[in-house]
């Protein structure tokens, strides 16, 4: 074997190794791990989420710009932005159920059953419970109710409805049967949702004879929420929920 010849091969090989290693080092590649298909899908999801968020932020930018224009025109017209702000406040308070409102809707009266107890039956089956009220409120909302009150108590986003022994506590205030639920919305839709087969009333309350009366009303007035301080801990936050 020719020693001289192969030393040059080794020279070339060493040069190649040196070259590869240096290029690799220079490329400054951080180790990514193996990219598997679930990982890829995750990343795709993440990208689309971020894009969605971006879009929403863009929308909110244009919205804010619109508001700015509104303020500016109102300042030009009347000298201040008071009127516009008043309007906005009214809208916000409306959403927060602070105002007494009116509109078409239904009045639903729930009363305890008058049926005689058979042997072995529990009297609890024949009473109106907090859970019944909750379910009915939810069904009314599904049917498009825009404002709901129970015995004059406005149901807001934070309203709690809870069992209080023989009574039901609504936002901490005791109420006894009969329960009068007022809901503003499309009267037909509201009534239909309450009376539909498979509705909560049909499924759980008909059998035990709990008295349900529904009255469609053209002009219904619902009181506003009267407890002013309800957002003690809530503050406005920047950005969305980070995962």
């Amino acid at each position, binding site marked *: 074997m020719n020693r001289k010849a192969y030393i040059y091969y080794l020279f070339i090989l060493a040069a190649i*190794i*040196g070259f590869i*290693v240096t290029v690799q080092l220079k490329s400054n590649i951080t180790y990514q791990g193996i990219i598997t298909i679930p990982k890829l899908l995750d990343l795709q999801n993440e990208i689309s989420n971020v894009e969605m968020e971006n879009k929403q932020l863009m929308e909110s930018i244009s919205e804010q710009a619109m508001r700015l224009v509104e303020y500016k025109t109102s300042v030009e017209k009347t000298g201040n932005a008071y009127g516009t702000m008043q309007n906005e406040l009214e809208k916000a308070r409306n959403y927060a159920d602070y105002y007494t409102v009116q509109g078409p809707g239904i009045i639903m009266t729930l009363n305890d059953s008058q049926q005689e107890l058979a042997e072995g039956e529990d009297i609890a089956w024949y009473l109106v419970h907090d859970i019944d009220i909750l379910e009915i409120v939810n069904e009314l909302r599904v049917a498009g109710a825009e404002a709901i009150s129970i015995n004059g108590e406005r149901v807001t986003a934070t309203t709690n409805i809870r069992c209080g022994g023989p009574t039901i506590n609504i936002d901490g205030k005791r109420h006894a049967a009969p329960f009068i639920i007022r809901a503003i919305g499309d009267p037909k839709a509201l009534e239909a949702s309450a009376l539909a087969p498979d509705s909560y009333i049909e499924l759980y309350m008909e059998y035990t004879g709990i008295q349900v009366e529904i009255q469609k009303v053209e002009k219904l007035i619902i009181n506003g929420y009267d407890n002013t301080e309800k957002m003690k801990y809530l503050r406005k936050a920047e950005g969305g929920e980070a995962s």
Partner: protein
Amino acid sequence: MIIPIIGLLLGIVIGILSPITIPIQYSSYMSVAILAALDSVFGGIRSSIEKTFNIEIFMSGFFGNAVLAAILTYIGDQLGVPIYYAAIFAFGVRLFQNFAIIRRYVLMGHKKK
């Protein structure tokens, strides 16, 4: 011994001076190629100690291993299965085995002296 080292330095210098960088999707090819080269080098050292060194076998091993490893990596990329782990595993095992044998030869040699 001095000539391969000069070659190594030359390669490093070329690597630093050349504007080539590797896109991230080819980095696994590069790592497998480096491992194949290292495996060949250790194999070469071992065979030269055993006095069975053959430049044709050495060269064909060097390039053949690198190419095969690259092909495995490519297939793995297409299938979404990290097949190049097989190459890394095989080269890694052989590398340590060769190193162990070299160690024995070197230490025994010293003892005899």
